[in-house]
């Protein structure tokens, strides 16, 4: 496999401890925008072993700020992978049994072609010259990946939030290659409120004088302040009022009284500032613009004559939808729309709403009911698939 050249100021893409596949000019990725992306590099990580029949592969799709390091220890941050609690030997997604594939999405900044990659035309980072990508484009790239790995079909495709959007796109457009699907805390389209929050975040980035029209790398700087504000605003939407109250209340940060100034008097302010400042060290501002845009553009029904039910007509895929009571970004009502469409298509579907005050981020957290649901669903699908061990 080809190793791409060093091109990523965030992560030294060529040296990440993961696998890469390179597609040349002869196999461009055809984008929804009508443009083509070539050459293309996909950075991916696998866990477990592909069985002889190639029937045990699970595609894990990451969310907005996730990456291919879903299990084990993240090689850059040194922290557990974003789904480390769910994926691993003996865990709900049991890597003794399944072969897990997770690739960095196109437009991302962890080794897959994105704004920080070299534009072959200019020999400089793409920046804003990268064509706008969509959820469907991300999935097309993943299809190229499993073709490259010579895996005919996936035992399961799973993911939460933006990952869940990819799962829905997979199941709708490649149903013959998806035995089972778990879209979690997601929706068939991005709501007006969610687009609005994303726009606030993007405007914070664009307003940073260090953005330089997207060519900040050329100016050897980065719109850290704008990106941090974007992350702070977004982070609030990932939690819930109850969770914020439980964690912080109105508690003061390292002081006994308010200071009558604009320092971080409250713990919740300090927490958000910390979230913002650590995020900019691991994420590229342009990637943030591209990926939030991809989510905004997602509207599954639009590709099927305006009817979500058509997206799942004749589907043979088994579905398990999961939502969380305190998730106000992708509330149960949005997830239920998926269930309604699947019921309408007479699909095999399970739907669980899990009670928790942890908000949208619940899908990434220690929520035992989620683990039980994943275990039960995968075990049953494995029996139907004839997988043993």
């Amino acid at each position: 496999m080809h190793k791409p050249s060093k091109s990523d100021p965030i992560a030294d893409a060529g040296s990440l401890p993961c696998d890469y596949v390179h597609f040349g000019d002869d196999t461009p990725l055809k984008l929804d925008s009508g443009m083509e992306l070539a050459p293309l590099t996909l950075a991916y990580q696998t866990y477990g072993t592909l069985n002889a029949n190639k029937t045990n592969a699970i595609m894990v799709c990451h969310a907005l700020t996730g990456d291919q390091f879903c299990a084990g220890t993240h090689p850059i941050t040194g922290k557990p992978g974003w789904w480390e609690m769910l994926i691993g030997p003996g865990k709900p997604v049991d890597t003794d049994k399944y072969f897990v594939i997770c690739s960095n999405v196109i437009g991302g900044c962890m080794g897959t072609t994105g704004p920080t990659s070299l534009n072959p035309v200019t020999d400089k980072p793409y920046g804003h010259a990268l064509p706008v990508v969509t959820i469907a484009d991300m999935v097309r790239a993943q299809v190229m990946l499993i073709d490259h790995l010579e895996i005919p079909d996936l035992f399961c495709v799973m993911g939460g939030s933006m990952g869940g959007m990819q799962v829905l796109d997979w199941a709708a457009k490649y149903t013959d290659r998806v035995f089972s699907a778990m879209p979690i805390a997601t929706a068939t389209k991005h709501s007006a409120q969610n687009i609005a929050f994303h726009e606030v975040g993007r405007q914070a980035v664009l307003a940073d004088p260090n953005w330089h029209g997207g060519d900040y790398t050329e100016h050897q700087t980065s719109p850290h302040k704008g990106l941090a504000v974007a992350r702070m605003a977004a982070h609030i939407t990932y939690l819930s009022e109850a969770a914020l109250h439980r964690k912080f209340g109105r508690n003061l940060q390292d002081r006994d009284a308010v200071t009558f100034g604009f320092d971080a008097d409250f713990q919740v302010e300090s927490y958000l500032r910390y979230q913002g400042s650590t995020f900019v060290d691991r994420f590229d501002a342009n990637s943030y613009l591209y990926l939030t845009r991809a989510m905004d553009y997602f509207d599954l029904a639009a590709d099927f004559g305006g009817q979500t039910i058509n997206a799942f007509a004749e589907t043979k895929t088994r579905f398990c939808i999961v939502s969380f009571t305190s998730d106000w970004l992708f509330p149960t009502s949005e997830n239920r729309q998926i269930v309604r469409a699947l019921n309408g298509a007479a699909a095999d579907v399970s739907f669980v709403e899990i009670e928790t005050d942890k908000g949208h981020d619940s899908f990434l957290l220690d929520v035992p009911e989620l683990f039980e649901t994943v275990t039960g669903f995968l075990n049953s699908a494995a029996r139907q698939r004839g997988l043993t061990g």
Partner: protein
Amino acid sequence: MDDLSQLTPKPPRDRSDLQLICNMVAEGSKVLDVGCGDGSLLKMLADRKNVAARGVELSQAGVNRCVAQGLSVVQGDADTDLETYPNKSFDYVIMSHTIQATDRPKTVLSEMLRIGRHAIVSFPNFAHWLVRYQIALKGHMPLSENLPIPWYETPNVHFCSIKDFRGLADEVGATVEQEIAFDGEGRQLAGWRGGTLANLMAERAVFLLSK
């Protein structure tokens, strides 16, 4: 997870109706159990009749229990969610000991007959002699092993008798293909179909309907 007290409605201790329902279902058919609780009936049908088993359940505890067992169950409400299914998408739509807890039993039964080729309904008979006795002579709402919850807590808001249910079946244009009345121990009251005696002696009944 083990707290199934929020299941709606609370099932009676004796579930011999499940066996009777199981006998009515054809091998290898496609079944929707509405108000499937912890999935006991679906599991029985999947194991014994090799059916494609689907369920709807109101309580999170019930749904989680079902999905963790590998059953395809969605969290939903019989009163509002049956409309999402297409016509005749199941061979059997089943409600065991649940219809009396719905807001609109007539609409629910009509929907069951729309989305299923058959509907199977089991329910407690409110004209059982013990119920009549408790109301008529003791002067209070019935309490028994079959109806264990007092009036102020029961989820059963639309009680009916066997006679009432026959009337509802008639009103929605359903054909009664089979009717089994049985006592508290699940013993069938044979040969009493259509008679008024079943309405007096049976604690529960199962109907197989079509339209």
